């Protein structure tokens, strides 16, 4: 491998910066007024390099699926930027967006709901081809026969009998349906695949088959995955890097082996300790970190650490300071004040609040200065 290609591979394919996705809560009959917002994703930043797999884990409702849908522009993000392959998706024109989307495809969680029950397998797999062909956005236009051969090729590639192309989705098992979904995602030969819990609806043996298929495809076609799961074992198996999400925020981002060997964030530790270990001896001695309380509702703005309410290691400082991502080692970041260079453990609540107030004031004056300059 030459240096140039190595450089290219290291260059991030997808850069997400401070992405926020808030869903407004409306009140009123005719004239709707926004009275609040569900902060499903509240400022996440990460980048995905070409050829790697970024796994996202987190418990239900932490915003994993929402962030992937915002990246795919199924929702219009509230703020933040998503740069894919040099295109800023949030502000791109419709044509640019379509061109970018050709390289971003999705695999969905529920193989029963993600395939139109009224379409044959052939028309499901060929749909992206037909749409892009009609819009004239393919590199070279395809004839009906081209599309047909491509469909057969894809079916064989994902391990489906091409004889079944006239069948309907309800005639397949869950694993086969997920293969259909994968074939559809591959139809336009995308660069990145956003996989939204693609195996969580399948039983374990089928999960392994699908995961192996995905890794094979990655090796063969040089695909990049953004992979969501809440099964830690699945994430460990498939990911090169892992992001842990909690309440719409990324709390830890690191290489997969680092994360599993040396979890830094209290939440990650709790999460990993909750996973059973398939070895009875170790399992018996496993220490579980039990978190108190529930995941708080994401409908209010927070000033402190998002994990403050449930954190076993909380300090007064954390209640009023949002932690930035602290670099622990090469490629390992964690959003926790425990890893700040200054030690906050000794500070009392009063000190912490005074500091927070002072920094808020400083920000306000800076804001008004800018305002004055503008005037």
């Amino acid at each position, binding site marked *: 491998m030459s240096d140039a290609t190595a450089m290219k591979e290291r260059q991030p394919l997808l850069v997400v910066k401070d992405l926020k996705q808030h869903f407004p809560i409306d009140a009123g009959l*005719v004239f709707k007024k926004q009275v609040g917002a569900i902060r499903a994703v509240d400022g996440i930043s990460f980048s995905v390099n070409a050829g790697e797999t970024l796994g996202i884990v987190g418990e239900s409702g932490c915003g994993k699926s929402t962030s992937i*849908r915002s990246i*795919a522009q*199924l929702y219009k993000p509230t703020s933040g930027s998503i740069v894919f392959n040099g295109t800023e998706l949030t502000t791109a024109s419709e044509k640019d967006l*379509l061109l970018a*989307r*050709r390289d*971003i*495809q*999705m695999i*969905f*969680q*529920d193989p029963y*709901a*993600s*395939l*139109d*029950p*009224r379409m*044959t*397998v052939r028309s499901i797999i060929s*749909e*992206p081809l037909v*749409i*892009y062909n009609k*819009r004239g956005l393919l590199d070279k236009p395809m004839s009906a026969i081209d599309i047909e051969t491509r469909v057969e090729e894809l079916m064989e590639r994902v391990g489906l*009998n*091409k*004889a*079944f*192309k*006239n*069948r*309907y989705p*309800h*005639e397949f098992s869950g694993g086969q349906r997920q293969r259909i*979904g994968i074939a*559809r995602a591959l139809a336009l030969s995308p660069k990145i695949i956003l996989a939204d819990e693609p195996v969580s609806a399948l039983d374990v043996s089928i999960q392994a088959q699908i995961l192996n298929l995905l890794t094979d495809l990655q090796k063969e076609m040089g695909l990049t995955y953004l992979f969501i799961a809440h099964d830690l074992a699945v994430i460990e198996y498939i990911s090169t890097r892992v992001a842990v999400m909690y309440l719409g925020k990324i709390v830890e981002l690191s290489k997969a082996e680092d994360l599993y060997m040396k979890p830094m964030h209290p939440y990650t530790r709790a999460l990993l300790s909750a996973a059973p270990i398939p070895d009875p001896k170790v399992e018996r001695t496993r220490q579980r970190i039990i978190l108190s309380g529930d995941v708080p509702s994401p409908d209010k703005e927070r000033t402190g650490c998002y994990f403050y309410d449930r954190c076993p290691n909380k300090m007064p400082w954390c209640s009023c300071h949002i932690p930035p991502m602290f670099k622990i080692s090469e490629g390992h970041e964690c959003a926790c004040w425990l890893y700040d260079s200054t030690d906050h453990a000794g500070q009392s609540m009063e000190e912490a609040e005074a500091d927070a107030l002072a920094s808020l004031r400083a920000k306000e004056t800076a804001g008004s200065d800018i305002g004055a300059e503008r005037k």
Partner: protein
Amino acid sequence: MNIFKKKVTVATNEFNQVVVGNSLTKDAWRRLKKNKMAVIGMVVVIFYSLIAAFAGLLPIYPYDEIILDHQHLPPSLTKNAGELMRVKKMEDLYAKAWRAGRLVVTEEQDAQLKQWVKDNQNNKVWEFCYAEGEAQRAAGTFAFNSSEQRTIDRLEEKIATELQVTVKHVYWTNPETSKRYDVQKMDYKEMLELYAKMFNVSPQAVEEQTEMEIRAQLLNSIKATAPDFTDEEYAGMVEDELKKLGEKGYDSLASQNIYGKIVTQSRRVVEQELKTIVSDTDTKFPLKETFGVGNDMTAQVEASKKHERRYFLGTDYSGRDMLSRIIYGGQVSIAIGFVGTLTSVLIGIVLGAIAGYVGGKTDYFLMRFVDIMYGLPYMLLVIICMAVFGRNILNLFFALALVSWLTIARMVRGQIMSLKNQEFVEAARSMGASTGRIIFKHLVPNSLSVIIVYSTLRIPAFIMQESFLSFLGLGVQAPYASWGSLVGDAVASMTLYPWKLFFPALAMIIFLFAMNFLGDGLRDAFDPQSKNQL
């Protein structure tokens, strides 16, 4: 061996065979076929539809041909119109004789007859008098007097000789080139000359006469639509109307007028000619021949003995065949049912899908509009529409379609709202599918089963509404018929001529039953949770 070979050509191994999928529609069809009532319903509906569609090809009498001698003939499989007329006349004569005291009956019978008259059950009186009279005449205790006998003789002669002559075409042969022209296709001036020659009058006189007639015709139609004006105002309106017609419109009206007269004259000539040969036993009726009608003109006519017709379902108040009226009425009713449903379903799908998929303000305003339309009294709206825009089939159908898309729009909206958050729609969006494609390729096909079931159940409702309006006299106007108008016409004389009510109602009931069974069957077939699964 042969069978074996055939199998081999279809599939050589498991990888190059093409498996035909088992679509949900196919599945539904299989389930429908198991439902006997639904299949019977479907067969009946198809039968009705075919009859209605090919009514023009059936060997039935024209539905709008008025034969006044045949008023109110009862249905009969064995007797032809002449015999029925004779029976009717005799009934009348016997009843008159009873009233005059010439037909002697026992006291008990007399009291019974009087009671029937009192109860307005004239049918029974006639029937009884006819039976009694025939018996007494055979026994020799009663005889017709000379005037009665004359009436019967005259009727019998009439039945034997009267012809129904229809002029199909009138041709004019050019004596120089001996080329034949169809008079109907000639232009006004040529027709005018032919007509003038036919009656030996000057063309100018004919032209003036025609103009007067057309003016009178226009005046009448204006008076019918806009009453309560002075004569001067009417005169002005006629002038306006004439201007509106223009040269071409006037000419076509005038040539229609003259052609009608030519046809009438030709028929008169032919009838004269036929009268002489009708008593010949050699001539077979019905006949189809060409006769010369003078002035190098020939007429192609069809002639049949008028009173040899058979009315299996009886006749109505102007002697029109009920059978053909029911068939043609069915044509109108079924067409309104199908086309009206189709239109309302199309409007409903488009608006419902847009409201459901786009959501937000569009949805809000569309649905409030639907709510308002729901709030208005439905039938009243249709009746007002009919009254304002005039009573004809097209307006009727528009008025019905206009107010009947509401339910389907709501239903489709609900379906689409529940479907639009499904993952396959998100998948389509992530593939860059346009809104139109998502609605019409993904959402509508998925809610189609509900729509199909609803529309099948909607068709009978449509027919009922049309019938109701026609019954009220707001729907189809004579000479056109629909099941509703036939029933409506018959209600007034229900006790005297029950067949006029019975047969159209029966035809309608069977169709509505069939349609409802089919709809129910479809609903069960499309519902995967239904109990009668495969």
